[in-house]
Structures are given as C-alpha cells and as structure tokens.
C-alpha cells in the first residue's frame, strides 16, 4: 500500500454541490495530476459540516487547514501553493470559529502545527517566564485586580461554580463546590495548597504550565486565597522539577516586589503569601492527604478520610488542594466570565484540557484542546498519525492509574461524562498511544511494577495486593501462568478496590480489569499455548536465561 502524505476533504452537502463542489473535486484531481501528486494526496468528500456561510469547503489534513469558500478558479493555485510548495494560502482560509470540540474547525495559526485552543497554556512559550513585566502586559494579574476591587469572595466562587470548571488532577471534582466547602469550613486560619506533585507516568502538563508561565499559578492562588479566606499558600512541587522550582521562586520574589503578593495587596487590606515546597520522590504524594503529610515533614502516607482536607487539612486547618492546571484556568475565567468558559468544550465538561501525547506516534508533546475531542482526532491530527507501519492497538489514558482503551473506543469523546459512561477514566490527561507490537501482558506488568514500587506500604491491601498481582502477571509473561491466576487477579482487584486506604491501591487494579475485559484472548494465549502473540514476552524465567 502506498502511503499518502495528505488528504483533502471537500464538502459535498447539497449546498456545496450547488456551489460547485463536484467541479472542485474534478479540478483538484486534475491539478494534482499536473503536479505529479496524484499518488501522494487523496481527495475525498465530507458532509454536513454546519458552516453554511463558507461553503464549499476544502480541508487539508494532516495540517487540518480549512479553506472556504473555495471557488473553482482557486483550485489550481491552492494545489500549487499548499500541496506542491507546502505553503498555506492565507487568503483562502476559512474565518476562524470559536471552538467547541469539533476539530475539523481548528485553524492553524503558523506553519504546519494543528491549531490548539490555549487557555491554560496561552502564554507558555510566548513570554519570558522570568520576566513579570511580560506577564503583566499580557493581562497578567488583571483578574486579581478585578476580584479585589470589584467582587466579594462569594461572587468569585459564584463565577467559578457557574463556569463548570472541574478539577484537572484526575478526579474531576467541581472546583467551585470545593472552594465553597473550604470557605464555609469553620476556623480563622485556612490554607491553599497547589498540587504540583505531578507524578502520574506520562504526565508533564503541569511542568509546562509552571515552567512556561509561573505567575499564572501564583495569580490563581491569590484569587483562591481571597475567595476562601486564606492568607497563606503552598506549592508542593515534585523534587524532580528543578527548573519549575527555580522559576516559581523567582516569580514569587518578583510578585512580592510588584505588590501582587505580601501584605495589603493593591491597597485593599488583603494579605497573601506563597511558599514553594519541593518533594523528594514519591508518587503517592500526589494524593492530597499524603501530600499534606509530606508538607508537614512526614512520610507521605495518606490519611484516613473523613475528615477531608476541606475541614482538616494542613496543620489540621481547612485546606484547599487544587491541581496546577485547575488553578491555571481561574484567571482566564475571572477575566472573560463563566459564559465564555462554558462556550468551550462540552456542556457537561466545559473548558479545555491539556494532554500529553506520546507512544508510537509521529509527534509527541503537549497539546491543549477543547474537552470532547476524540482519541482518533488526537492521533490523526495532533500526533500526526501513527508511526510508519504502526496501527493503533490501544491507548492508555491518564497515566498508570488510567484506563487501557482498545482501538474500538477511539471515537469516544474525551470529556468527563462520556468517559464515565464508557467506563473509562480521563485521569490526568496523559495519552500513551500503543501500536500492534505492544503486548498487553508486558504493558500491565510494567504498570504493576510501578504500583508495587510506589505503594507507600501503609495499608495491607495495597502493599500486598500490588506485589501479588505483579507476581501473577510476571508468571504469565514467563509462560508459567495458569487460568486460575486470572480469577485470583480479579479477586485481588475487588479486595484492593474495597479495602485500600487511598486512590493508589484503588486504581492500581484498573489496568488488570481492562486487560481482562478487552484483551483476555491475548492473555490466555500466553497461558494456553505458552506463546506471546506479539513476541514481546520472553516466556522464560529470569533465572533460566543464559
């Protein structure tokens, strides 16, 4: 099979046909042939695209450039410029449209990178993170000024609640409601803790936010402080993120100098200070009560809940714990309003999501797109397709504790509600894309190795469960497994989910369940015929290797 480098979609709804879509297709094919591109570029049609004012449309992938309205006389020039010379024809671009999760409408702004909708990462990569003035000149600290001068704390919480923002750390808890809990909690002294202990394998979105735009998190924490009645905040950042730590420290000093932190901010009598606290390497500290324990100078062992941090958190005081990405959404929401935020994403999951994409794909990295786009769109557009020779077998969403989803589910919209309905978890936003050479047993073994290593050891179901589960899967990968082992795995999973003290043990089982739900035949092939279908597992014991 020949590989195509580009694909052209032409709208062929009745209106487009009336306006000459069929002739455009004909001219496209002729022009492509004239430039010798007929084997490299596919021309096909697309229907109902809901933009009657700019028909007919021509969409070019993988760049996802939308041209429209296109006239027959434009076709030859478009082929010459875009497909032959590789230059986007700016004059023919369709006018931009506010994004709602329909990727076909994303317009590229520069070169060949597909367009994103950047709210959280708006400034990352565009300003000097060490220079507070660049932050200020791009609307920085405007939201803080606005709430301190025009809004009451309750009004701030109202806006956040109305925006529908949900926690971006993985659980998706409504942010406004959490703020209200902490505001309502009795006590004079309250704390804000920013959870920057991003340790979920495959996730580095918070690092990009902190490294690229450190003041954004600082501004958001001050806003949260005003809203819930706290005068002190901590950023708990994982020890591995040295650069982000330095940038935060510097940003805090600058913010103090400029009067955005400290006492009597903007002359309003509001005081707020932030400390940065580096972790020392422990995945479990991403769990909020373990994080609080660690902040207090103890081993990061999760507490028993209730009581929850909203009433009994840091130093036993009411504490708001929010993820970096969640906080980074706050200043734009305050500046632009809840309605603006709700116009992005899906009705049940407003806003954007920052994804980190990696695996057997052509482009790995970080993207920010509206909630509700599908995995297929991420792979085909943002990841620029699977690597040559690769086809999608499965994707792991949300890091080690996330779901393993088979290729058949790749058209599920990625938002909290759709994923919940499909029984999968969106998690932290890591998307690990795996091809046909990936062995499910080998992958789950790696995931369980992670959990048995990272289990804090405080509670038995998790400490022993992760170890036993690993041993069973390891035996399968060595050709020593048996079918009863699979039943034992599921029993272990139930016990761990029921009895583990925190999310680590409760979600370590997701990979086991997904493996047996979607890929049981492949697992059984290891057991029944002693054969790893992908040839990844060595099928010999470590000790027997020569």
């Amino acid at each position: 099979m020949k590989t195509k480098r580009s694909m052209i979609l032409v709208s062929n709804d009745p209106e487009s046909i009336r306006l000459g879509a069929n002739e455009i297709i004909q001219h496209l094919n002729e022009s492509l042939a004239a430039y010798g591109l007929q084997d490299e570029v596919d021309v096909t049609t697309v229907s109902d695209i809901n933009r009657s004012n700019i028909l007919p449309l021509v969409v070019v992938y993988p760049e996802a450039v939308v041209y429209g309205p296109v006239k027959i006389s434009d076709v030859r020039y478009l082929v010459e410029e875009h497909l032959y010379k590789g230059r986007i024809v700016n004059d023919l671009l369709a006018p931009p449209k506010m994004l709602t999760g329909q990727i076909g409408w994303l317009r590229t702004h520069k070169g060949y990178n597909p367009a994103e909708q950047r709210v959280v990462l708006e400034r990352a990569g565009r300003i000097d993170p060490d220079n507070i003035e660049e932050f200020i000149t791009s609307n920085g600290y405007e939201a803080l000024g606005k709430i301190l001068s025009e809004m009451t704390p309750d009004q701030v919480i109202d806006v956040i609640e109305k925006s529908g923002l949900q926690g971006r750390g993985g659980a998706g808890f409504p942010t406004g409601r959490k703020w209200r809990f902490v505001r309502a909690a009795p006590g004079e002294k309250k704390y804000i803790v920013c959870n920057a202990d991003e340790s979920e394998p495959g996730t580095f979105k918070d690092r990009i936010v902190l490294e690229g735009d450190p003041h954004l998190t600082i501004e958001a924490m001050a806003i949260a402080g005003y809203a819930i009645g706290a005068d002190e905040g901590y950023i708990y950042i994982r020890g591995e993120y040295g650069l982000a730590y330095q940038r935060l420290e510097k940003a805090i000093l600058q913010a103090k100098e400029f009067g955005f932190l400290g006492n009597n901010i903007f002359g309003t009598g509001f005081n707020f200070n932030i400390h940065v606290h580096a972790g020392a390497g422990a995945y479990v500290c991403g769990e909020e009560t373990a994080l609080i324990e660690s902040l207090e100078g103890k081993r990061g062992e999760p507490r028993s809940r209730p009581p929850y941090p909203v009433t009994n958190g840091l130093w036993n005081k009411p504490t708001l714990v929010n993820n970096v990405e969640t906080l980074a959404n706050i200043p734009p929401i305050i500046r632009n309003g809840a309605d603006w935020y709700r116009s992005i994403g899906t009705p049940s999951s407003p806003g954007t999501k920052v994804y980190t994409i990696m695996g057997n794909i052509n482009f790995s990295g970080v993207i920010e797109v509206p909630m509700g786009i599908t995995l297929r769109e991420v792979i085909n557009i943002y990841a620029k397709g699977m690597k040559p020779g690769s086809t999608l077998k499965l994707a792991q969403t949300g890091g080690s504790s996330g779901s393993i989803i088979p290729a058949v589910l790749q058209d599920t919209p990625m938002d909290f509600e759709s994923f919940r309905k499909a029984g999968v978890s969106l998690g932290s936003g890591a998307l690990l894309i795996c091809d046909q050479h990936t062995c499910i047993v080998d992958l789950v073994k790696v995931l369980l190795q992670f959990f048995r290593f990272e289990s804090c050891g405080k509670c038995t179901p998790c400490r022993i469960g992760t170890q036993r589960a690993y041993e069973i899967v390891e035996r399968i990968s060595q050709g020593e497994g048996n079918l009863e082992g699979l039943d034992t795995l599921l029993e272990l999973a139930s016990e761990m989910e029921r009895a583990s003290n925190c999310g680590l043990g409760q979600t370590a089982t997701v990979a086991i369940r997904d493996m047996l739900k979607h890929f049981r035949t492949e697992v059984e092939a290891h057991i029944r015929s002693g054969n790893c279908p992908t040839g990844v597992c060595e099928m010999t014991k470590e000790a027997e290797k020569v």
Partner: protein
Amino acid sequence: MSASTIDLDVAAVVQSAIEKHGKKHDGLIPILSEINHVFGYVPGEAFREVRKQLHDPAEQMYVAESQLYALASFYDMLSTKPRGRHVIKFCENAPCHIVGGKAIWDALREHLSLNNGETTPDAKWTLVTTSCLGLCSVGPVLLVDDDMYGNVTPEQISGILEHYE
C-alpha cells in the same frame, strides 16, 4: 558529588541546610534533600547531627533519629546508602517502555555490568531505575546526576557515559 565533598564536615553541612530551611518540621525533607545532594546520600552521622541541631525545648522542637531515617528511606530521591560518584537513573515506566526502554536498560546493565541498585567496584557508577521523570515526549529517558538524556538509543550509551570522570 565530587570526591572532595566526602571530606566535608557533616556538622557544617547540616548547619547550613538548617539555616536555609528553618528549624521547623516542614523543613525536614528539604534539609535531608540538601544533605543528600552534598554527599550523594544521607550518612548516619547526619541523622544524629540533624536531631542534635534541631533540638530546641523552648520551641518544643524534638526530632528522633528514627523519624529522620523513616523519611530518608521513604522518599526515592534520598538514599541511606553511599552511592557511586555518578548516579544513573533510568525511567522504567510505561511511556518510556513502549518506545524501546527495555533495550536501553539492557544496554546499560551490560555496559556497566550492574543490576538495579548496584554500584561499580570503583565507586564510579550507581545504576537505579526511577519512576516517571515527566520527560515522556522524548522517551526513553535517563538521568545522569542532574543531566537529562532523551530519545536515547542503545548505541548512544557508551558515548553518553564517556563524558563523566
């Protein structure tokens, strides 16, 4: 982590770490991290020193050595055992594994004749696995001391390690 730092006075290192991070409970982990950074691990003597120097009945500040050891043994970036002059940390998580991590791990073990957690007899290298370092877009990833290497291939291993004395 050069050889000369081994001769550093533990008491002085502890003192400067405490001055920097404060005589408070929430300073304990940063203090231990600082000590670990200087020596490559937290020596037993340092636990005694930290306890002694933090002891302050007036402020009700008491820390037991066992408490400090509990921290140092819990957190992955702290070590209670001496390590080589250079520590190689290899990410063993799924994102690096999927893009060829195992071949790198095998090449590292073969090149250094080490298994996970071991140190070479000349105390030059310690090889350990680590959990995700957040550099997943350039996997497979390894860390030599504080230097990061991404998109590593097995052929590059000897070239990378050559840079270190």
